[in-house]
């Protein structure tokens, strides 16, 4: 957010430790909260809320992956699989035991955390691309397991229907209700990640990313923190999977295949590694861009081509433009959209008195 920091006098430790120490920042956050909790859901059509819901799900998943890849420096291509672990855990619990969604949500997250920590074990010995391949193996093993073990997948169709989440007497099923349901978790995920990175654990993650040998020498238990990073990241993934399952009303393994892992990796790289805002920007960018491109093509495509040609051109051109824009943004700012935003911010910080 755009703000100045002069005239802020902190007199207590509590004030110093605040997530947003500046009053103007707090007001901005409040304004954003009002925008997203009141203005948007109460004024926009359900369709736009459904798009927002897809963005919310992507944000939680991207935040989780950023903890692992951006903050701890451990590359993972298994994020989609961890989501499926959460989804199937929750779906099985909901259908076999009839447990309520908060229990399923937590259980799905914890199960994903456990599996994630196991898949993360190779990270103790290998780094970089080697680790990426090890997590890729994890992705494929989990995919295969869910696909073939009917105890988990609930039958050859590998899909389990779950009832809509209930909040007291209210059954959350419309996009507007889902919007609020998901937004609460987005807020929790954002606050959780922001705070995590200010704790001893978060700092240890960053130390490991920057130089793991140095981190070990200053007394960070690499074994514990690397696995913890995998566990926390997978917990987020598991929660994402559960939310996705409740959002769609079904857990289906084809929603969590390797392409999904790649999409999430793309989100955090485009958004900016190692930043909360970057994960949000990336999730928004990757989810919304294809839709925006399609809208603009529908508006202008008819001027140049016949209707049938447009129908065939739109999806193909959309893919090309999507790729081109990713390349463009990464050339303009290799550190991602978050860095771009920070550059704009620091320009306006002293504007109009740049000197």
């Amino acid at each position: 957010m755009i703000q100045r920091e002069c005239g802020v006098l902190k007199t207590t430790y509590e004030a110093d430790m605040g997530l947003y120490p500046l009053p103007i920042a707090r007001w901005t956050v409040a304004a954003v909260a009002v925008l997203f909790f009141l203005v948007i859901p109460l004024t926009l059509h359900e369709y736009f809320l459904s798009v927002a819901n897809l963005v919310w799900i992507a944000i939680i998943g991207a935040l989780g992956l950023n903890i692992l890849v951006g903050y701890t420096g451990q590359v993972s291509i298994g994020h989609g699989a961890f989501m499926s672990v959460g989804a199937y855990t929750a779906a099985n619990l909901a259908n076999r035991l009839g447990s309520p969604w908060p229990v399923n949500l937590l259980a799905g997250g914890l199960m994903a955390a456990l599996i994630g920590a196991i898949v993360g074990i190779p990270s103790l010995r290998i780094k970089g691309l080697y680790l990426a391949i090890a997590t890729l193996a994890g992705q494929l093993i989990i995919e295969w397991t869910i696909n073939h073990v009917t105890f988990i997948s609930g039958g050859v169709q590998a899909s389990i229907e779950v009832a809509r989440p209930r909040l007291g007497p209210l059954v959350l099923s419309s996009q507007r209700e889902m919007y609020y349901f998901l937004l609460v978790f987005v807020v929790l995920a954002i606050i959780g990640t922001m705070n995590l990175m200010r704790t001893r654990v978060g700092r240890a993650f960053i130390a490991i990313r920057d130089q793991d040998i140095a981190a070990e020498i200053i007394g960070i238990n690499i074994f514990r923190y690397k696995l913890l990073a995998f566990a926390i990241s997978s917990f987020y993934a598991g929660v994402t999977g559960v939310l996705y399952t409740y959002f769609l009303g079904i857990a289906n393994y084809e929603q969590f295949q390797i392409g999904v892992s790649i999409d999430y990796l793309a989100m955090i790289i485009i958004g900016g590694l190692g930043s909360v805002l970057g994960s949000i920007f990336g999730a928004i960018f990757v989810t919304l861009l294809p839709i925006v491109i399609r809208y603009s093509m529908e508006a202008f495509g008819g001027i140049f081509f016949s209707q049938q040609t447009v129908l065939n051109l739109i999806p193909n051109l959309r893919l090309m433009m999507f790729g081109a824009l990713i390349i463009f943004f990464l050339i303009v700012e290799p550190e991602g959209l978050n860095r771009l935003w920070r550059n704009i911010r620091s320009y306006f910080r002293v504007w109009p008195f740049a000197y």
Partner: protein
Amino acid sequence: MRGILAIATALVLAAGSLLTAAPSHAQSKGEVVIGVQCDRTGPTQIVGTVLCPGFHDYIALVNSKGGVEGRQLKALEIDHEYKVPPAVESYERHKKDGAVTMAVYGTPQIYALAAKLTEDRIPGTSPGFGSAAAADGIRYPYIFPIAATYWSQGAAAVDFVKKQLGGSLKGKKIAFIFYDNPAGREPIEVLEDVAVREGFQLKTFAVPPPGVEMGAQVLDIAQRYKADFVIGHLFGGAPSVSIKEFKRVGYPLKKFVSFVWGAGEANIEGAGGFAVAEGYYVMQFAGVGPDYPVLNEIREMYKKQGKPAPKEMASTVFYNRGVLIAALHVEAIRNALKAKPDGKITGEDVKKGFEKISNFTLGGLVPPLKITPNDHEGGGLVQIWQVKDGKFVKVTDWYAAYQDVVAKHIKEAGAKK
């Protein structure tokens, strides 16, 4: 921050209590909107790039002849690359634009939208894919397979094999080669049941995604297992590979019958052309070839506009399926409009319209389906065609087999919940 959150939460709860379910759109005048999902750029693009133009051409034809009951139709299409989130977005977009019926495309997509379709009371079709259990119209009131499901295809395939092998399957060996995903495995349970009844030996051979590597399985079928007949159930580029591999190991293709997604011209051309695939049997849920009156009308329509017929029409298998899907949607809308003289139709009316479809054959392109409130599959009818002298030749007329076995499985799937 905490204070703000508390206020926000309180406001949310207050706002939430004010909200009610969105009313379903009723259209009185103007165009009737159909939501079409398509995959022109994803893994099944060889189907989508031909099937979707077929859909649009039929709608254009209906419109050029004055529409349905005096109403024009509008087919909105969104490409979802065979991914789930764009399919959700596309569904909501079509709903916003007032679609009263949805042509969904893809198994994971119909799964993901099943709950929404039912809640919003909009019928969605899943022709030739999706869950076979959705044929149960009581349990899935708003899902319409409208073509033979994988269970019906499996049953029909065995029946065909039985006739090819001289009327008895006792002691015969049948191999089932399938794409290793849920859709690929779906028919196995029906095949196993039929195997017990007919006394043949069934062995399944999984081809892992993306389905381009099946040399070992094919060799196994041809030389170790020495199958008397092979039933294939593959998608995307895999059917072409299977034809090439069977050819390579010298297994006669006239002992191979493929399910509906390995049955297009593109699959044959991918394997090296019709000459290579001579003898290959394929199963169809829509008529094949250019010789149907409706296709002539489409060509006529293009001629009147002074345009050549679209090149997609040459790929008759998938194009005709697109026409079939569109035609069934149009029939459902027609039935709905007839039932509602004021013309205000909702998804619910179109659902009832689908359930009234019977003996609508479009000059032989569409099987004589009979869709009822109980049976959303319409009978599970298929035809078998064979690659012969550079084109597909019809071998059997519309038929369905072992319907009691399929019905038993549908019932069991319904009882599970």
